[in-house]
């Protein structure tokens, strides 16, 4: 463990104002994109189920429920 105390760790040698935002922005961006994609998938699933019901065909050949 490189750091002596939690305080040192958070201070990051005086550069906390640059290091923490860098990591925060990166993780928020990745997490946000992941979330957006998940919502996009649920919307697509609903749209697909709706379209299949409308078409009256219940073929599961599309492997939609895999």
């Amino acid at each position, binding site marked *: *463990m*490189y750091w002596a105390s939690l305080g040192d760790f958070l201070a990051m*040698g005086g550069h906390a104002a640059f290091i923490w935002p*860098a990591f925060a922005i990166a993780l928020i961006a990745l997490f946000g994109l992941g979330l957006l994609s998940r919502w996009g998938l649920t919307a697509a699933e609903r749209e*697909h189920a709706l379209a299949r019901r409308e*078409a009256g065909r219940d073929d599961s050949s599309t492997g939609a429920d895999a």
Partner: protein
Amino acid sequence: MLHALANPARFLRLMAAIRPWAAGVAVLGLGIGLAWGLLYSPPDYQQGETVRIMYIHVPAAWMGMFIYAAMAVASATALIWRHPVAELVAKASAPAGAAFTLICLITGSLWGKPMWGAWWVWDARLTSMLILFFLYLGYIALWEAFDDPARAGRAAAILALVGAINLPIIKFSVDWWNTMHQPASVLTLEGPKIHPDILWPLLITALGAKGYYVWLLTVRVRAEILKRQARILRFAAATDRRAG
């Protein structure tokens, strides 16, 4: 194998099988890699602690370039063999590539401020990343510019290939341009020579980032396939109703 994947149903089943593993690699890789970089690796004798930004900056740069290459390969497959799913894989990859490139630019800027006192430095690599980011935006914008997805898919595939051919030339010209206007003392972003304590966290984080990309791909490609099938079903239903 390639043509086996052309069948969306089989492709969806493969994606569903991969997803938990990709999620695992992503969480573990990013978690361990970044923790190692932040907690255990030594600071740089010159830059001090700011070098730790490298553990997110460098993998993001690698991913930005890796994903564009993957998009070019998927686009070539889509164009040459009319592979329907490959187009959607390329479309699903673009947002991830753009995100990683943007992360690389932002973290590069946050790294540059304490080191050179400037939020943006026209370093050769950062400049190439900025251009790569524009290529991603152009690709995504082209997809959105058409009503008919099939038309958009092939146009975007051509653009991705044209971009991929031009990228090395752009990289070469930017590197040359940078040496021409090289201020004497600019410390390159690479900074410390890569010795194990620094290399391992980088590689683990990069692996985690790849896991994240694959996981995101399984989610986004599935959504694209389902949307396309819904569109076809609705289209077929509409024509049946008109015919009936």
